[in-house]
């Protein structure tokens, strides 16, 4: 097999696996959220469908597929139908560069455990994340509903306010690691004299966490879909599986952002205490253990997401903007400057 064929085949195999896992993961996250929220709110969450309610996501999916999907009379039908797909597409695309485990040799080539290993991965990521707002804004505008419109406006403003500090937070890590490739960034955290970037970039970590929550429109920054104010925000007029696509996109975005936090700041697949407490060298175990550690870290941040939602009230629109521009942006610029200074003097 020549080089191109190899790239094509591995690309397709990886994409299919990643898509399947992400879809399943998004579904499982809805269950996990309802379970955890339930426990935090002194109730059970879903328990009826399947053992421990494990089949609930399936039942929900089936329900959404079977539902009638009315289209509002004045909707711009084309855009209205495409918008949820854009959201989901962007969510899938963003995950493509996330490495879930260490690379390994197979069939004579180095294989990465991410769908694609782009050497400008972080740049690609920022570009894709910015596209996410299109699904929201277009859906909001095309459904010809005033609540949706307000949700869309909020989405636009919110994304602009947060993307910059998010980008600058990533940049701090990039400068420190000296590479834009996510795999390179993880490797850099393993390099001698280095440690997880959360210790070297605490401010960046903080900024990225906040920016990430805002990016995914989750509580306390869920103003875009603020149920108590805007009913559903941008998806007020969506029902059935169209709404399901938006939801799935949101959950996959959560997965992506959690995975990015793990990759950028918590050493990706590097186990806790690896190199200090123990070392793993045997090939298959190292891969599996790496994936395991990665998922533990992602799961932790997903839990933090749910925790936020159970605890915090929603921030007001203007307060969020003020916070983004007046606090986060100067802080991220400062963080960037200090990091750059440190790296250039090192």
């Amino acid at each position: 097999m020549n080089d191109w064929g190899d790239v094509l085949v591995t690309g397709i195999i990886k994409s299919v696996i990643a898509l399947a896992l992400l879809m399943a993961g998004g579904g499982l996250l809805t269950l996990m959220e309802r379970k955890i929220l339930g426990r935090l709110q002194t109730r059970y969450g879903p328990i009826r469908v399947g053992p421990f309610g494990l089949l609930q996501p399936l039942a929900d999916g089936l329900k959404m597929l079977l539902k009638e999907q009315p289209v509002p009379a004045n909707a711009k039908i084309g855009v209205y139908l495409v918008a949820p797909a854009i959201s989901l597409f962007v969510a899938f695309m963003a995950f493509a560069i996330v490495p879930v485990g260490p690379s390994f040799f197979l069939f004579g080539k180095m294989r990465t455990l991410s769908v694609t290993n782009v050497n400008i991965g972080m740049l690609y990521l920022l570009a894709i994340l910015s596209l996410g707002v299109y699904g929201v804004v277009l859906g909001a505008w095309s459904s010809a509903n005033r609540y949706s419109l307000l949700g869309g406006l909020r989405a636009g403003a919110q994304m602009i306010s947060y993307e910059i500090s998010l980008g600058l937070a990533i940049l701090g890590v990039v400068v420190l690691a000296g590479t834009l490739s996510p795999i390179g960034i993880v490797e850099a955290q393993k390099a001698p004299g280095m440690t997880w970037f959360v210790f070297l970039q605490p401010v960046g970590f903080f900024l990225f966490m906040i920016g990430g929550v805002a990016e995914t429109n989750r509580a306390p920054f869920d103003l875009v879909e603020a149920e108590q104010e805007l009913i559903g925000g941008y998806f007020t007029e969506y029902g059935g599986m169209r709404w399901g696509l938006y939801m799935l996109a949101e959950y996959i975005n959560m997965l992506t952002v959690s995975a990015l936090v793990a990759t950028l700041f918590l050493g990706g697949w590097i186990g806790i205490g690896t190199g200090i407490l123990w070392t793993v060298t045997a090939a298959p175990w190292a891969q599996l253990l790496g994936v395991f550690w990665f998922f533990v870290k992602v799961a932790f941040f997903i839990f933090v997401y749910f925790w936020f939602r159970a605890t915090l009230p929603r921030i007001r629109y203007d307060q969020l903007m003020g916070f983004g521009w007046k606090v986060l942006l100067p802080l991220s610029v400062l963080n960037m400057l200090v990091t750059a200074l440190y790296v250039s003097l090192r």
Partner: protein
Amino acid sequence: MAIQPREDTMILNLGPQHPSTHGVLRVLVELEGETVLNVKPDIGYLHTGIEKSGERLKYQQVITLCDRMGYLDNMMDELAYVLAVEKLLGIEVPERVKWIRVLLAELERISSHLVWIGTHGLDLGAMSMFMYAFREREKILDIKENLSGVRMMTSFIRIGGLAQDLTPQFEPMVREFIRYFPQRLQEYNELLTKNEIWVERTKGVGVLPPDVAINMGCSGPTLRGSGVPYDVRKTMPYSGYENFDFEVMVGRNGDVYDRFWVRIQEMAQSLRIVEQALDGLPEGPWRIDDRKIVPPPKDEIVTSMESLIHHFKLYTEGLKPPVGEVYQAIEGGRGEMGYYVVSNATGKPYRFHMRAPSFYNLQALPKMAHRCLIADLVAIIGSTDIVLGEIDR
């Protein structure tokens, strides 16, 4: 009803089906971006004709209607109506009855405020608060169920006394609640009062100046949040409230936070009253002994002809207060809850009207919501703690 929008403004129809209008309130909002320029509350979507129905029911039966008007503080509705009729009849109930009524009314105030804090938290996105508040309210509902067999529409407070004496389990249950609740209140404070985001969202929002509040006829925590120490329990004591030691909580700025703070403090004060009432509960009869007003005991009916006749007359014709009209106000969960009853010496009230505190508090909404944001509007509606059941009647 309509607002004429300017060229650069948008009309948003908030409700009647909207998650945070606390029932079926419709609010027309004129928006400039997200800034609210004009607010017009539109009520009547829950109109049930309860007041009119009251004219076709006997005095005893009207109690069931009162339950259903202010459905979050049923016992206080009952109490206000029963006090009005008792005033009309010119009767004085035994001490024990008064104390039990106070005890129940204060439990009801806590339960009403719990629903408020839950829904208000939900409005601002603190969704767990809702579950916690309802968990605590459940305890009060359990007490009510144990007492009367019904969780909400108790009809426990009757003209001339109560439906029956306290159950043996009542005291331990209330004691348990008194022991349990202060920790929960502390939890709420940790979750909301000390929460940076919560304070940001509520401080300085929806300010209601005291003079406006008075002119609008506001009462209850909505008025006290603006710093006016008007509490019917202190200014016009009824049912023996003068015997109890409690403070009237007032806010300073009249914003959403102050109204929130006042209610939180009121829950603690109510708990104090409950404790005092339980400690000093006098012994004695649980209703008056007047066969023209309260029915004879059941075992007497089967042995005494005279009792049977009294029973029959009371339930077919009803009790007959002398001609006259009375207004009796109590401090309900939302403010001055008053009942106006006119008698023409028949067994049914000639006119029966409720002064619903929510109705007046809602009036102040346009004043409070001027030039706020949509998110604030939701917070302000929540902070007035309206119950549409008593607004529309």
